[in-house]
């Protein structure tokens, strides 16, 4: 910005831009493959916009306009408006809660003159900006408990609002900001505790609660036995062990059953049970089963582009949005999937690399946020198509069909590119 005469593309990180284009193009190919039938008039479909792939082309055009707009914006604009945008995002979420339109069991959509728009997608960007702004401000000392609580609250407010919209999947993505906070100094023990909690929840779901009670008691007894010297020295350690034991036991005995019967919706309970293999209801398992058949039948080399029978003949549901990876898995096989995942990993590592080269905390936190969001989307989406996670509808970044999703990720990435181009500036 110091040199107004500079080329338009000056300072752009070409690897990121290239991988962005590659993923969008792969996405287009996959959506096309899922919908195309022999004898379709491609030009006619494109003009009449009656197919998802045709609309995705339009969304890509819109995204490019947005990207150009962002690229031409001054970096300071983003720091300046971060909090405002966050407030606006929260407001949108509240509006959606009040007047949202339902699509497939969730109320997260807003109708704007014929276009449907999902604020929960957009708020990710706002939250990322606001978190970066907060963590980079001079007043924030992230070693203090108070700052950490405020940062957590900034993430958990949209998380809660989106849960209320029945978009559990999108809400879960907000937890990715804890990864950012970990990078910025949140104690690692929190990650360990979170991991243990996941193990605890899974075992509570999979194993009989009385068996678990015995196991916990046994472990506690062993720990007490081996730590008897330290305990003799320090009574509080015994209290802590008993505390952990009591919490774990109470968790499996009361909290999980309570959550399953009172808090979670029926369909959510069923999906979790299906994923854990506890229920064999063919209707509930249909999506995952068909998705696994499609991917599994791809073999090592795949069936070839437009040759996949499962995706082309509608066996896989939601195949241009949430289950878009099926098309890639079936048509291009293990080899293609590996290359595809390789692009994502390269993108993530490049973003982390960019993050670490920033001079300003704002840019670094923001870039980490982008990496975390993409990582969470990727991990959850692909895990769900291959039966590793329950079916929670979140899109595959830049690949799945959908305007809100494509535009949000475009903005996330191009703001980062803009910030990176100006990395010599110190932004607050």
């Amino acid at each position: 910005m110091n040199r107004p005469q500079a080329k338009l593309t000056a300072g752009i990180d070409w690897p990121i831009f290239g991988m962005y284009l590659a993923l969008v193009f792969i996405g287009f190919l996959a959506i096309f493959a899922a919908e195309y039938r022999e004898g379709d008039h491609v030009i006619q479909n494109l003009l009449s916009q009656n197919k998802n792939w045709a609309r995705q082309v339009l969304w890509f055009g819109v995204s490019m306009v947005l990207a150009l707009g962002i690229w031409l914006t001054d970096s300071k604009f983003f720091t300046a408006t971060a909090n405002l945008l966050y407030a606006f995002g929260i407001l949108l979420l509240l509006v959606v809660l009040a007047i949202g339109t339902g699509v497939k069991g969730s109320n997260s959509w807003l109708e704007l003159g014929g276009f449907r728009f999902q604020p929960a997608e957009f708020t990710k960007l706002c939250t990322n900006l606001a978190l970066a702004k907060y963590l980079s401000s001079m007043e924030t000392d992230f070693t203090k408990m108070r700052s950490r609580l405020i940062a957590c609250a900034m993430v958990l407010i949209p998380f809660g609002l989106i849960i209320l919209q029945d978009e559990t999947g999108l809400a879960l993505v907000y937890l990715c900001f804890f990864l950012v906070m970990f990078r910025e100094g949140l104690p690692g023990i929190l990650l360990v505790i979170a991991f243990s909690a996941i193990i605890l929840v899974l075992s509570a779901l999979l194993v009989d609660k009385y068996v678990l009670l015995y196991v916990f008691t046994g472990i506690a007894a062993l720990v007490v036995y081996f730590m008897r010297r330290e305990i003799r020295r320090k009574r509080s350690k015994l209290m802590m062990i008993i505390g952990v034991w009591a919490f774990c036991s109470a968790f499996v005995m009361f909290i999980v059953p309570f959550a399953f019967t009172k808090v979670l919706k029926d369909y959510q309970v069923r999906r979790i049970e299906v994923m854990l293999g506890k229920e064999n209801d063919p209707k509930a398992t249909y999506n995952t089963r068909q998705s696994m058949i499609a991917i599994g039948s791809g073999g090592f080399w795949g069936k070839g582009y437009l040759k996949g029978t499962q995706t082309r003949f509608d066996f896989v549901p939601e195949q241009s949005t949430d289950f878009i990876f099926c098309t890639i898995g079936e048509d291009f096989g293990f080899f293609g999937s590996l290359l595809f995942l390789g692009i994502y990993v390269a993108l993530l590592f490049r973003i982390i690399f960019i993050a670490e080269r920033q001079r300003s905390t704002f840019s670094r936190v923001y870039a980490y946020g982008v990496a975390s969001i993409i990582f969470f989307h990727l991990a959850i989406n692909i895990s769900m198509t291959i039966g590793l996670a329950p079916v929670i509808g979140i899109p595959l970044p830049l690949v799945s069909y959908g305007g809100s999703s494509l535009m949000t990720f475009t903005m996330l990435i191009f703001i980062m590119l803009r910030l990176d181009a100006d990395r010599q500036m110190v932004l607050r």
Partner: protein
Amino acid sequence: MSVFNQPRKRVIQLICLSMVTLIVVRLFYLQVVETKYSKLADANAHLRKVIYPSRGIIYDRKGRSVMRNEALYDLMVTPRSVKNIDTGYLCEVLGIDKEEFIKRIANARMKEGPVRPSVFASLLTPEVYGKLQESMYMFQPGFELVLRPVRSYPYGVGANVFGYISEITPGMLNDSSGKYSAYQQGDYIGMTGLERTYENILMGQRGIQYLVKDNLNRPQGPLENGEFDTAAIAGKNLRLAMDIELQLLGEKMMKGKVGSIVAIDPQTGGILAMVSGPTFDPNLLSGSYRAKNLGRLLTDTVSPMFNRAISASYPPGSTFKPITGLIALDEGTVGPEFGFDCRGGYGNCGRFSKCLHSNVGHASNMRNALANSCNAYFMHLYRLCVDNKKWGNTGAGQAKFVSYLNDMGLGRRLGVDIPNEKSGDVPDTARMNRRYSGLWNSCSEMYVGMGQGLLGLTPLQMANAMCIIANRGFYFVPHFVESIDDDHSGMLKKYKEKHRVANISDDAFSSVVLGLEDVVTKGTAKGVQIEGVAVCGKTGTAENKARINGQTVQLKDHSLFVGFAPKDNPKIVIAVIVENSGFSTTYAVPIASILMEKYLTDSISPKRRLALDKMIEANTISPEMKAKSKLDSLNSVSYMALAGDELLRKIIAK
């Protein structure tokens, strides 16, 4: 601050990498290690469609096709595609009401689901098809007409020989032996007659076409451009020994009579005609009204579906006498010159059994005894055979006598190539013991010698036994199919095998043959004489008792004729039985003579035409039975019945 947490970058990279690794491992398992998914995908997306070949045709000995494959149509419905149609009009065309329409749609939905076609109305009559075809555009895409090949029979004869085809039954489909594993529900299969015996040959080989389908089972086109498809191979044709005109003539003459005709070419064993009266038009069991007609035929009082020629057993009466003679000669018990001093009856067993003749010398040798049909002579001959010291005792003698009968194909199934053949009855040791509580001697069943007593033969067995005499000692297993086009099945091998059962000198044989010739030239079968042809034969009048309301009642005798012609180069052997018709000269002899003349000279002499008309008109079925039978009205509705009459006129006029 950032500097302090620099190593955490590594942790975050590690988290990303380990997650992606987990995904890659899982993908490797799904796509490379586990193979079931590609099978499941094929099961999802592939549709196996069976292509039906055209069924083989059957030709008679002169290459005339006795049946045709005709095209009828099924109306198929795809319930989900039925939209905005004039239901009322469709119902009117099909002749059903609205409730029936709804019921059938519901049925179709249940059977094949809402998006796959299933039968709405099967084998439409030509009229309904005509109307529907014109207005089909109104009912599409929910309804469509699908071609179904059906048999039709231009001569309208041979129903019990050809058999019929129909949809495979659930019982057959559930058969655990795997015999029907190649069939699916809705497939047609031969149920009786030749259609059943030669099912594998007539059916041909089904083709398989693989299609790809979508999630709603809708076909989307061929799989891999038809690379895995196999073409259907048409069924092979059968060529019969049967003369279809002879068959037609026989069936017309057996109209209104209960009984049977079997004509065999003794030099090959090929069956020239097989009639079981009363019979029915085979077209009744093919096409639109099959199920309805089948029910009527099965319950008709005159049992038209019972093939008397192979399933009914009759006392052979006098026609058995040549066989008794043959056994005695072959055993060496007596020579052809053996005579018996019959004085009008047989008294050697304590009771006196009457004989038709009493003049001296009417049984002075075997030839005379046959010509005069002497009862006493053959009863005596039977006793001599059984009591022959050669066998040790009477029991062994009886067993030997029965084993002769078995060799000649009596008392066991001959192995003709249509199902439901019965073995008939012979007086074997077990049956004798049962009848006489173990205490019997050669006198007990002396009537067997003259063809009565514990003896029951199928008309086919009678004809076959006469083949042995005509051939001077051998026979071929009687069969319909002479050859199969392009045959590799080996099914006909057993019919080419010559069975020699008697080793008698020509002299001895000629005494039997001459005796049979005498029957025709001067005896009971004068009516069978054909100009320029030496005919041999034996009439029979079989006594016939039945238990009615707990009392044994003597019914009117069965009239029989079994014979062959020409004497020295036999071309046709014929057995005719007309139940309860009295003396054989009335029906059995004229019927046999007309058929032999037709076969040997391919014409019917003017002097016999009167007899022919009489035979066709005559009715020997009891009025009570006839009154309850619907067979005649059934036969007359068949659209082929008239064609048969037309043909008959042509045959007679020749």
